[in-house]
């Protein structure tokens, strides 16, 4: 009788405790951006300096609010935060030429580190802004940057950073849109082997927070995300 009670009690304590831990884990695991990853579309083969490679395309956008990206039309918890869209979770093929197009709708200002006003890690160190080839942008009129970084040991290093020029502060919404006509920035780079990278914006755009790096900059699903090379 006593043994039976001990076994039941022990099982209750260990099983119940494990269940509580597992439940906490499930809740915390779900707590975060759960957008479906945006995979680059592969269209044809490109001739590169490293030979023929699949050519993958991704199109992104940067908004002055959160009502057009992955947080839905209502904008989620912080509709007034700046955001990237349509997803913060990006996926591209390995050993491929990747061309990313970003439609920039947001205004901006002076970047803290001019290093990021220059295109880096792209093919030829260039990007096109509204179709015009450039190597850098005015450091006093940056809207955002798209910066893939981190070279965690044992995976191929990948560092790509392009500045997105700012919209004029007085830019009027384009007809039929909530946003002005976008500034279109396009750039290409070659991926190496598979890896898990992070990307984020290096232009301080978390207004109201210390160093403007809080809020949307420090919260998943706005100005940062994952960049998976598969």
């Amino acid at each position, binding site marked *: 009788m006593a043994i039976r009670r001990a076994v039941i009690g022990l099982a209750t304590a260990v099983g119940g405790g494990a269940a509580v831990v597992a439940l906490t884990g499930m809740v915390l695991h779900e707590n975060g951006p759960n957008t479906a990853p945006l995979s680059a579309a592969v269209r044809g083969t490109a001739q590169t300096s490293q030979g023929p490679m699949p050519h993958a395309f991704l199109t992104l956008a940067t908004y002055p609010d959160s009502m057009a990206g992955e947080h839905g039309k209502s904008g989620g918890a912080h509709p007034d935060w700046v955001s990237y869209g349509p997803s913060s979770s990006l996926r591209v093929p390995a050993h491929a030429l990747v061309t990313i197009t970003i439609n920039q709708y947001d205004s901006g200002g002076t970047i803290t580190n001019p*290093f990021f006003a220059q295109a880096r890690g792209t093919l030829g160190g260039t990007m096109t802004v509204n179709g015009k080839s450039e190597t850098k942008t005015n450091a006093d009129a940056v809207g955002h940057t798209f*910066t893939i970084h*981190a070279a*965690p040991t044992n995976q191929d290093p990948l560092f790509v950073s392009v500045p997105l020029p700012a919209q004029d502060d007085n830019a009027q919404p384009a007809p039929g849109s909530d946003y002005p006509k976008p500034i279109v920035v396009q750039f290409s780079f070659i991926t190496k082997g598979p890896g898990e990278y992070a990307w*984020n914006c290096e232009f301080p755009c978390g207004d109201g927070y210390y160093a403007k790096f809080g809020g949307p*900059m420090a919260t998943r699903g706005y100005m940062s995300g994952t960049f998976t090379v598969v």
Partner: protein
Amino acid sequence: MSTSQLGDRARGWWQRRETRGIFAIWTVLTIALIAFGFVPSHIMGPPASPTMRAVEDTMTIFTIAAAPVAAIVWAIALYSLLRWRHRGDEIPTQDGPAIRSNGPATTVWLVLSSILCAFLLIWGLAEETAVARPATAANALVINVTGQQWVWTFSYPGQGNVESDQLYLPLNRPVVFHVTSKDVIHSFWIVQMGIKIDANPGESTETSVIPDRLGVFDIRCAELCGLLHADMETSAHVVNADDFARWVNANGGHV
């Protein structure tokens, strides 16, 4: 007490069963721990600078110095469990010997631990002076390191302000890093070179090293700096002087 009386006491003490037993366990443990002393430096990997070599030597020496102390504590503990253990569910019917204190034991323990402590301090001060030496070298290469949430960038003021997201260092030349931050506190750490200094907003801190092994080494942020702290990593490439010059020129600078 005369010398012969002391000798008798020591001999009597050595005759005791526990003295010999504990001594045997202590010897085995000490040898094992001294052998283990080489494990930390092995895990830390081949050093890429004299600084890291000094750190790894410190780990080894300190482990070896601590080995007999840890061994005596564990030897007595182990022996007591083997030989002095009271088995059963009831309170032991007899108490142990009423030893309140032991002057010689306390004195020896205190003196030994003070000597060890003095050794640690002297070793540490000498080592600290040694690892600070590259900072004063005349031919030192100066590199400005900027930490910001969540990337490192480097610029070479003496090489025409070449900028890079990765660090390139010429072999065997002293390097002085001036480290600062654009926002929160980061910590600049070249793992295999054993140097680390915080990047503070509004302040410039300094560290220095002589890279003495060719290769690619890890730079990590060692101070929690927010969302992507874990991704704040880059590489340090140690190359020959010629390759370094080539790299500088290719990036628009001059040596």
